[in-house]
């Protein structure tokens, strides 16, 4: 499967919004995200981070607005069905082996049967699970399950990963291994957009920050600038630990 976009492509979000039960969950968001970058969506619980990620991915249809791939010198085009990979906060393991979890994901994504096993073994080696390929996936530890979840997504070679607080339920060791993988993949050209409420993690990983509060994007820009001198009072209060929800 050939990757459809190459850097420096971007994702253009145009007035993307979502509401439920008469309440605005994500207020219109318009911004451009580099696909190869490391973007962290930061904010307290209930800020709309997960919803925004799902809107970008397309698993949640927006009330209005759109997401498109923008490349220099070309007109914006819709995002391809499998250009964005999504990693859930709590990995869902199929009751089959580690290897079969990956080959199943590849089958769903339309990869030819003959290619599936070799690709699956390659990506499992990349996440350090090659030795566990024949083990039942539900028996893996939490950290291993999340690495497998990322392997399932990476096996299809997406242009960018969207991750919904993938380390929220992991211990520091497992969190470090996930962050290491994300750094490696980003260096190799696969960027990510990841939600977190963990300030320290955002400092470690981000080169761009989207700061959200109550469904609204309050700040968007380089991470070092946000952490050094946030442009808004809410941003400053969040960094100071004064905003919990």
């Amino acid at each position, binding site marked *: 499967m050939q990757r459809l976009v190459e850097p420096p492509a971007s994702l253009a979000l145009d007035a993307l919004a979502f509401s439920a039960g008469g309440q605005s969950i994500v207020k219109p968001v318009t911004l451009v995200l580099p696909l190869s970058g490391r973007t962290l969506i930061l904010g307290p619980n209930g800020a709309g981070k997960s919803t925004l990620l799902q809107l970008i991915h397309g698993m949640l249809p927006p009330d209005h607005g759109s997401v498109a791939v923008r490349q220099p010198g070309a007109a914006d085009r819709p995002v391809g069905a499998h250009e964005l990979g999504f990693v*859930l906060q709590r990995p869902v393991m*199929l009751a089959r082996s580690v290897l079969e979890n990956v080959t*199943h994901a590849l*089958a*769903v994504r339309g990869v030819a049967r003959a290619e599936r096993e070799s690709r699956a073994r390659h990506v499992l080696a990349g996440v350090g699970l090659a030795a566990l390929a024949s083990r*039942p996936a539900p028996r893996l530890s939490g950290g291993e399950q999340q690495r497998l979840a990322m392997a399932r*997504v990476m096996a299809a070679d997406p242009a960018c990963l969207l991750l919904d607080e993938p380390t929220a339920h992991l211990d520091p060791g497992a969190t470090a291994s996930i962050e290491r993988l994300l750094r490696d993949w980003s260096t190799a050209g696969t960027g990510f957009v990841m939600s977190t409420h963990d300030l320290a993690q955002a400092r470690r990983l981000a080169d761009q920050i989207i700061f959200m509060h109550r469904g609204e994007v309050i700040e968007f820009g380089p991470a070092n600038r946000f952490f050094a001198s946030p442009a808004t009072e809410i941003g400053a209060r969040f960094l100071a630990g004064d905003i919990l929800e």
Partner: protein
Amino acid sequence: MNDLAATFPMVADLLSGRQPGLWAIVGLSLKVSALATLVASVLALPLAAVIALFDFRGRNLLIAVLNALMGLPAVVVGLLVYLLLSRAGPLGPLGILFTPSAMVIAQAILVLPLVTALARQILEDSLRELGPYLRSLKASRAHLVLTVLAETRLSLLTALLAGFGRAAAEVGAVMIVGGNIEGVTRTMTTAIALETSKGDLALALSLGFILIAVVLAVNACAQWLRVRAHATLG
């Protein structure tokens, strides 16, 4: 109490092979119940999958009707099937009243709502768990259905066993449409009913214990399969 005390030697006597008719009754009971479960499942599993995995108009009404039908009285089903298959009935020309085929039809009708309701619940629960993952893969409807069915295969086996259990324990419908003819349509349950009505409670109880043992053996085999599969699949 005396009847109960006499039961155990009688069970041993029945199982010793000196009662050649017994194994024919056990065999017919198993055959009719298994076939009824199979026929019901062929209809119930796709129906459960459609209700669980697709949204359509009238879905809630269909669920309510199926749930209500789980309590369908067996004698009413027996009577309706009797009327359908009797000489004057619309299916009378088939000539299958008082045959094992009629018993299979009656039991399948009884088992269908139960297996459908249980399978629907199993599939819905699985979809709730797997749905976010499959949506994150942008799985097609076909992949979604196939994945959910594959992931629930062991639980669906339990639904089938519940259906088999209902069929094996049923007496009213098979009595009406089968006629309890010795060597033709006599099953464990109809034989128990007959012996009870004759006052031979010890024999009726003995047959009852054998029926329970047969159902237990079938469930034990299924449980062994589940344990083995869990050991392999996690």
